[in-house]
């Protein structure tokens, strides 16, 4: 290696750079400091996965938040009694890079530099939501979130967050409920469970197994799958030889797409295939085209829900992206709850807004929402089926007229 000799002015160069960073950060923080009387807007921060492995879902979440902000501002803003006027909302987005450490850093920045009044949650328990909740807890800022499994969230006993999400047991009961409604000659006999070997995948797998016993089913094939696996032929051939007639799969979009493609290549078809996480995005249907037909997906919401604004929101999303979404309504509803909570609290004080959210019932795009004393509000996880590029709601049964179609062999599709 070459000799490296210390440099002229290196120290001062480095020192000056550090000073620039310090002034840059301090300047940004100072610029955001507003006096109470000068309050011109409500600053809402959010840490979203704009880059990294979750960036695809981050786009939907960001659109939902930005649309909710645009809509409330169009209506003049939120009435805050403390200031005696309606204040518009400004959304400050920070990239958490789909990484827990970066999520904590993003929330630190939002609170200390951007000086946000409160926060809307990020995506997925381990990557964005739990680190965001913990950081908000440290600085006593309200973190109003969704998209996080309830048990790990409850374990922390957060005092500055609230969670709006589905109950895992209910979500996992959806396929069994659907199977129960199938005609006697179409009953599922040999289901298989293919679950991604991750935080969420294992949580889902455990509940699926427990509920299978309760509903009277037994998985003839139960195997974990590695994230990013490129070859599922061993599992597919095994399933084919066992005569599997239904598959429950939990995995990322790319993995689910690969799995379906390899099923077709191996001429292996099941009459019922239901995916979680990886089959609900529009990209899944776009990538597979007609091969996505008959496949079921989980979801948080449907534009077919009979709640005010649902259909319009779904149409606005379609107009923008030329695909449908089963998540944006729930995230829009999360914002609706926060707007109403601020108005009911009459202040931007984090503790009081959180208390107002806990104490009241809210009318949203997901129907009526009421939080429990732990700060959790539960919505029903949906089940839909891809049909001609659209997610047709199959479950909850009372909110749909659509009848599920069982898949014929590949050659007959």
């Amino acid at each position: 290696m070459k000799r490296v000799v210390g440099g002229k002015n290196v120290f001062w160069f480095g020192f000056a750079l550090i000073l620039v960073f310090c002034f840059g950060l301090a300047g940004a923080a100072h610029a955001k400091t507003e006096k109470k009387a000068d309050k011109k807007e409500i600053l809402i921060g959010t840490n979203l996965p704009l880059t990294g492995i979750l960036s695809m879902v981050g786009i939907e979440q960001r659109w939902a938040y930005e649309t909710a902000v645009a809509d409330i501002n169009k209506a003049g803003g939120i009435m805050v009694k403390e200031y005696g006027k309606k204040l518009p909302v400004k959304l400050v987005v920070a990239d958490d890079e789909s990484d827990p450490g970066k999520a904590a850093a993003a929330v630190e920045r939002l609170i200390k530099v951007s000086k946000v009044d409160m926060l809307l949650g990020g995506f997925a328990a381990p990557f964005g939501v739990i680190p965001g909740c913990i950081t908000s807890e440290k600085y006593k800022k309200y973190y109003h979130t969704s998209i996080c499994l309830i048990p790990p969230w409850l374990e922390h006993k957060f005092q500055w967050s609230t969670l709006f999400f589905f109950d895992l047991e209910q979500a996992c009961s959806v396929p069994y409920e659907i199977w129960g409604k199938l005609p006697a000659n179409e009953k599922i006999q040999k289901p298989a469970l293919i679950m991604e070997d991750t935080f969420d995948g294992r949580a889902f797998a455990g509940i699926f197994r427990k509920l299978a016993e309760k509903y009277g089913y037994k998985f003839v094939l139960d195997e974990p799958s590695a994230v990013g696996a490129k070859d599922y032929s061993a599992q597919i051939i095994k399933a084919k030889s066992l005569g599997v007639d239904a598959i429950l799969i939990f995995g990322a979009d790319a993995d689910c797409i690969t799995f379906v493609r390899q099923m077709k290549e191996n001429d292996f078809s099941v009459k019922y295939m239901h995916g979680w996480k990886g089959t609900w995005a529009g990209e899944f249907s776009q990538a597979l085209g007609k091969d996505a037909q008959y496949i079921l997906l989980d979801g948080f919401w449907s534009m077919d829900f009979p709640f005010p604004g649902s259909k319009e929101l779904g149409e606005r999303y379609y107009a923008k992206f030329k695909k449908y979404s089963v998540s944006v309504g729930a995230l829009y509803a999360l914002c609706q709850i926060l707007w109403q909570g601020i108005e009911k609290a009459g202040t931007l004080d984090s503790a009081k807004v959180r208390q107002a959210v806990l104490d009241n019932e809210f009318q949203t795009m997901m129907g009526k929402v009421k939080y429990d004393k732990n700060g959790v509000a539960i919505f029903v996880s949906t089940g839909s089926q891809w049909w001609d590029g659209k997610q047709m709601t199959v479950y909850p049964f009372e909110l749909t007229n659509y009848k599920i179609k069982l898949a014929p062999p590949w050659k007959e599709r």
Partner: protein
Amino acid sequence: MRKRITRNSTIAFAIVTLAFVAFPLLVDTEESYLVYFFFMCFIYVALAQGWNLVAGYAGQASFGQHAFFGLGAYITAITWKAGWTDFLDPVAMMLSGAGAALLAMIIGVALLSKLRGDYFALGTLGLGEILRVVFTQGGTLTGGPVGLLLPSSSYQSLGPYYFIALAIAFSTFLFIWLLMRSRVGLALVAIREDEQAAASNGIHVLKFKILAFAAGAFFAGMCGSIYGYFLFHIHPLGFFSLNWALLPVLMTVLGGIGTLFGPVLGAFVLTGVFELANLYIPEIHPIFSGLFVILVMLFLPQGIMSLGGKSIVTRLFPFFFGSSK
């Protein structure tokens, strides 16, 4: 003359250190983002110094810092959850460092005796991946893919984290400074320059390589420990992320590999660039940060420390700036 240089060095170093010690006492640690910024810088300084010791001084490029970082975090979390240690417990931090160093010694015997150069680097890269899978499959002890949740209600202030991270960074700096002035440092440099020549002069090559590797792992384990206390959720994907291996390498190379002050400068500059890019251009920050690194590597391939020449600072900090290369 030499006495005067040493005295000036000590005074200047003490002033910089005291400024960092005094800083959180002058600001509100819960309001100032700079406190958090410096906290992260200190962690990166220690990680980068650890890597610099192994690669820059001993000439053994390793990509396994994330393995030791993650292991340190898990040791802290497991001992805390078992009730053997407490929140921000120095014993847990030392255990984390020692556990990482022990693993480095065990792995080091196998890898360093057989592999060199790129092969050794790839071997250490594999170590991180193996540990990530082991901890993901670790059952209730490691929390599996869920990881270990720690009681976040223990948090009181960012101040203690800042001072502990500063102490770790300072210790790393001091350790390497002293080490490189000792016969051990001389042996490491000799090994880096020519292993066979070093061996023929009676230097036990494997022993010194393992020593450097274990010392670097010790600091990485300590960093994992304090960062685990900070995040309160030890998760295999986050703590065994390749970022913890690659960023220290980037920082050291950017600052100046094989110099004492290079990793410090690299850690501060790169963390600062990332933070400002994240703050002002969140949409395209990876492009800007990547461009910055490319430009520095294009125009300063030996790092910022290679700007060259003698200055008052190099006279004040002869050991920080003067490379042994």
